[in-house]
């Protein structure tokens, strides 16, 4: 199929995940989650209830014909489709991902759209793909006129947020996070690896991966959604603790400020729950350094200790009044 020497096997997969609290007073149950994420009439929403409630939308495609962002200024035009999907965890945390994969080389002319439509989520460069520069370009973010995965994820998120199921009365205010990821092909014979995870300003995180040829982009997207979800939980609870001014103000007000964490967030921690089996172990890297679960447990313990400390005077009061 196609030009000699040109293969559609991808050497690079990139994506961006946006994570936010579902702006609804109550968490959605499985049925409502499926209703929210029903982006296409022809494909169902996948809902799983074990080990936690998780709903994943079908992919929607966006046709693109524009320059790829590159870190070295190389101008590479690319044509194809970007796949976008949304996930809802425990009816509480909403995520939208836009991602694509790209082959090492593509044809020098644009094909009819039918060609691209049968390759969903594949974006073909004109000529040779500068793999490293393109990966770095995506992580850095596109300039105007370049492929902007964040914008595609954002517009999917905006579409979902207009859904009549949502009352826009979130139980607490929180920031979104953006996680950009790029996965280059691992050297032959080597397994998947997580090369780098960075926290940048303004809620931006980046992940660099190396994946064997047979790993589908959707599996990488799933892993990165899982990382983004847990990073968002850490970010949000840390911010909540900062704002509560624990230790600076007395009485129950600081603890009351933490109540939403107890009600809505503490039960969401479950790394790897929906990650492809071949990629689950990449979490180990983050557990060692910086230690995601270690930080989470410390935060949870701190909140529970504060609640306990606040409860002592109440208990005391109750006991003395019964006497």
């Amino acid at each position, binding site marked *: 199929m196609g030009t000699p020497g040109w293969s559609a096997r991808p050497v690079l997969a990139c994506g961006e995940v946006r994570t936010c609290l579902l702006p609804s007073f109550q968490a959605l149950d499985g049925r409502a989650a499926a209703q929210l994420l029903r982006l296409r009439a022809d494909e169902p929403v996948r809902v799983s209830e074990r080990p936690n409630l998780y709903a994943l939308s079908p992919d929607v495609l966006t046709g693109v014909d524009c320059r790829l962002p590159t870190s070295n200024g190389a101008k590479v035009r690319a044509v194809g489709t970007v796949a976008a999907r949304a996930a809802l965890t425990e009816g509480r945390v909403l995520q939208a991902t836009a991602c694509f994969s790209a082959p090492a080389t593509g044809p020098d002319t644009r094909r009819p759209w039918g060609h691209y439509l049968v390759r969903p989520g594949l974006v073909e460069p004109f000529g040779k793909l500068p793999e490293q520069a393109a990966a770095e370009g995506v992580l850095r973010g596109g300039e105007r006129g370049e492929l902007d995965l964040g914008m595609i994820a954002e517009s999917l998120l905006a579409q979902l947020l207009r859904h009549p199921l*949502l009352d826009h009365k979130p139980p607490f*205010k929180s920031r979104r996070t953006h996680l950009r990821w790029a996965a280059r092909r691992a050297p032959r014979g080597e397994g998947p690896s997580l090369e780098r995870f960075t926290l940048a300003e303004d809620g931006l995180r980046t992940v660099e991966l190396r994946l064997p040829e047979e790993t589908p982009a959707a599996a990488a997207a799933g892993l990165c959604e899982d990382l983004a979800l847990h990073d968002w939980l850490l970010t949000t609870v840390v911010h909540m603790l900062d704002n509560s001014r624990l230790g600076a103000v007395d009485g129950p007000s600081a603890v009351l400020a933490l109540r939403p964490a107890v009600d809505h967030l503490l039960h969401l921690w479950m790394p790897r729950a929906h990650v492809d089996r071949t990629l689950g172990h990449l979490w180990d890297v983050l557990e060692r350094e910086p230690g995601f679960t270690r930080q989470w447990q410390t935060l949870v313990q701190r909140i529970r200790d504060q609640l306990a400390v606040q409860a002592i005077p109440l208990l005391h009061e109750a006991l003395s009044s019964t006497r």
Partner: protein
Amino acid sequence: MLVFAASDKGGTGRSVTSANLAYHRALAGDDVCYLDFDFGSPTAAAVFDVPDARQAAEDRGLHSYLVGDVGEPVRIDVWSDTEHRVLRNRPPGSGRLVLMPGDLSGGEFATTEDNLRRCVDLLLRLNSEFDLIVVDLSAGRSYAVDMVLEATSQREMRGVEFRWLVFHRWTRQHVAAAASLVFGKRGIVAGGVARGHEEEALRSVIRFVRAAVPDPESALWSQVSATQSAWMRECDRDLKQLASSHGIGYSLVLGSVPLEPVLQWREQLITDEDVLDSQIANRETWEALSELAGRLTDDKYWEQA
């Protein structure tokens, strides 16, 4: 909560006062976002002392976002980007203070289906992120006013609480003009009702703010003659009467900001340092702003008048 800052005319202190309110709320610990929807003449960059905002908003500001040129409007973290000596030291316990500047080149524009949708998306998104969102609207019955009236009437926005502040100066002309901006034939209430707002509900979320009000009892006027002083008192009394006959009397006033020399000379944030250390600004101004900031979300001041 969304707070829309409107005014009948320019020069009413709308931008500078609403920026000060945003600042006070952030000091008190709220996460606050200030949107410059004054498309004709964006001033927020100057008030918050963020020169970078002018650069950044060259073509990535709110205007570019609403017309669809960029996917997201630029955000400026005031605490970290300001050149203001005092603001740079973010006080402990304060909330975020984010400015979304307008575009330098952006003028007025008509509300189309697409920019309306973008406006709704933006307000929904900010609502889930910030405790308070202050939207500074261009003066008069501008496109900006129409757009937010339209946006807040959309089904998606039903759960989002919003309030209006109408700023006017304490003169006969301004009092009459402010009343007509809200209750006139082409006013905010009529415009809102035409877009599907319920009249009673809309009326109940509109309050007036009297800006640059000279207080005859203030030390500022202690040197004037007895005749002048009597004349000022009389004017003040007449104005109060006029305001109430226009239907914008005491019960609809959220607060007044006294005439403040610093603000007459320069649009800026009044910091506690200006009041306590350098003493260039009046304590009354600081207190009035602080009180007003508190009343924004105090339901006692928003019960049916």
